[in-house]
């Protein structure tokens, strides 16, 4: 009697434990949350926990008649590829995670790839790294989903930006880029785009971590270009733009990655700043209820000011993507079959902070803003929704 009672209790406990174990869907995150490159990963580490918290507080989500909650395992790579490799190994092998958000850094992506590709078909790696583009749609790399848009092609923001500056009469563009994976890829993309548009380019690389750009700016300015295309994140653009105007090297800029922050800070000295911004939150907050709600939710969740200059980076592996993943699992009717979930993810269009869909190879398409700032901060915002299938 006692034994059967104990057995019944043990059986019930096991059932409950198993049920609870099955009730959780784990999301891993590997981004540079701290360190010199954290400007590329920090915002994602802010947006994802908010979405996870919202979904869980709403009671979780249902897939195939069963209720699930999300568990986020967010790891800080510090932008260190070696650390990221250890972390993704932990996520896949120890934590048995099937969905990993990140990385946005190309050098991290390139380093973890040889390890990650062994688990093709067993998990999804959803990150915005520029290097990920070349692996999309290739056999053996179905696990790669790029959560950012590409510069070229009919949906590419780079082609549109190039057309825009060409129409302004631009003939020569100087490029000043970080000498790292991201900078090398951006430089090669835009050299081609500009060449196709008949715009001459001169390229100078600088070491990541550089603060004083006067030598490089002086070299480029001597060539007398029409515009400077400075770097791919805010942490260098602030310095480049300031030193450009202080030293009288450049007053016209084209920015294809980064935010409006550097332009606005130097607005009294800049003649033109043409910026691709995934979303210009300062304006969007006034006109878009979802953006307004997100800003308020951020302030309540983190109890600090909203980071307007960083928020556009939430277009990659961030808040919307958590909801999108849940929607994909619901459409696929499974939380385990990553192939089916990937297929569902690529078939849906999600309208959150952004209108997000994926092309057939798994590259993100989303609406974006081109912001043209003139001297003293006069701003014109053009929102573009790229063509989709």
């Amino acid at each position, binding site marked *: 009697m006692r034994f059967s009672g104990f057995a019944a209790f043990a059986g019930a406990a096991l059932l409950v434990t198993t049920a609870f174990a099955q009730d959780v869907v784990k999301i891993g995150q590997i981004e540079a949350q701290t360190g010199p490159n954290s400007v590329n990963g920090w915002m994602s580490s802010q947006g994802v926990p908010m979405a996870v918290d919202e979904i869980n507080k709403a009671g979780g989500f249902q897939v195939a008649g069963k209720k699930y909650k999300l568990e986020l395992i967010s790891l800080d790579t510090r932008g260190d590829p070696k650390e990221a490799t250890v972390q993704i190994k932990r996520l896949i092998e120890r934590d048995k995670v099937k969905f990993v958000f990140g990385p946005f850094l190309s050098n991290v992506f390139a380093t973890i790839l040889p390890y990650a590709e062994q688990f093709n078909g067993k998990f999804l790696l959803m990150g915005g790294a520029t290097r990920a583009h070349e692996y999309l749609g290739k056999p053996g790399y179905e696990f790669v989903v790029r959560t950012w848009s590409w510069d070229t092609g009919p949906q590419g923001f780079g082609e549109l930006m190039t057309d825009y500056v060409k129409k302004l009469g631009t003939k020569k563009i100087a490029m000043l880029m970080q000498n790292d994976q991201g900078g090398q890829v951006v430089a090669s993309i835009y050299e081609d785009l500009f060449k196709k548009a008949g715009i001459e380019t001169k390229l100078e690389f600088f*070491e990541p971590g550089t603060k004083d750009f006067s030598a490089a700016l*002086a*070299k480029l300015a001597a060539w007398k270009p029409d515009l400077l295309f400075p770097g791919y994140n805010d942490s260098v653009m*602030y*310095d480049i733009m300031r030193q450009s105007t202080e030293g*009288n090297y450049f007053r016209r800029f084209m920015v294809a990655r980064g935010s409006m922050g550097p332009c606005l800070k130097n607005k009294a*000295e800049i003649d033109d700043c043409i910026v691709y911004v995934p979303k210009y939150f300062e304006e969007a907050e006034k006109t878009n209820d979802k953006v307004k709600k997100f800003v308020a939710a951020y302030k309540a969740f983190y109890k600090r000011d909203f980071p307007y200059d960083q928020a556009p980076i939430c277009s990659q592996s961030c808040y919307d993507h958590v909801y999108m993943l849940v929607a994909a699992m619901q459409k696929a009717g499974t939380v385990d079959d990553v192939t089916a979930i990937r297929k569902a993810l690529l078939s849906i269009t999600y309208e959150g902070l952004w209108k997000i869909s994926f092309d057939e190879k798994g590259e993100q398409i989303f609406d974006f803003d081109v912001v043209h700032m003139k001297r003293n901060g006069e701003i014109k915002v053009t929102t573009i929704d790229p063509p989709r299938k």
Partner: protein
Amino acid sequence: MTQLLVTQILNGIIVGTLYGIIALGVTLTFGITGIVNFALGQFMMVGAYAAWYLTDVVGLPYPVALLPAVGVAALAGLVVDQLLFRFTRDNLVNGLLVSIGLIAVFESTALLIWTSSPKEMNFVMSGSLSFAGISLPKTKIVVFATLSAVIFLTFLALMRTWLGRAAYAYSQNPEAARLMGVRTQLLQSGVVVYSCALAGLGGALYVSLYSLEPFLGGMYILKGVEAAILGGIGSLVGSLVGGILLGVIEAVGSIYLPTAFRDAYGLILVVIVLIFRPSGLFGER
């Protein structure tokens, strides 16, 4: 081309004085306590954030904000010295490890408070001074003048004051200095605090030139140590000269060679100098 070269030499001298002030802090601390304080870069970061906060957030005029910013860095140095470094005087390896550990603590704290978003201070002094085709931002000239004055006054104080002579005496023979009545504990703490104040001043001036992030200290301590080694660890003049040489070689190298390898030009110079003078340019043979 001549104008470009001259401009970059001048720019390199200015940037080099920022390296020099950190190198001075490294030299002073090492000379008196025997510890290479790798956390000095973090006190530079503290001074920078304090200056930015007092100027852009609180609204103080920038020149007025400088002294309290330096004070904050000095106070942080005092706290760290009394709570941590004080107990590592007899074990230099521990002191080194503590200084390295402090880097993570300071960076994480700054990240928590201010996030990774770069902060750029409003223009302190816009415009540049031009002469014969050579143009230098006014702010840079003022920063150079301020740092040079402080380094020069530090040197004077060490040569001409009782405290300075006591510090020299202690660095040469701690036991003898103690026997001569030098309060060595106070001296060591004083030097640590002063070094942190120097680094804080460097940071407070840095922020008038460049954007600010929690990780700026890492780069500058490396430059400071590089400059101190180039000039000769233990030599005050060497720390300034080392910093300036480093700044100039980086700037000039970047004109004729790819900017991407800027840091390497300084390192090559250090290696060449050390081959011929292992103790640095002004170090004791």
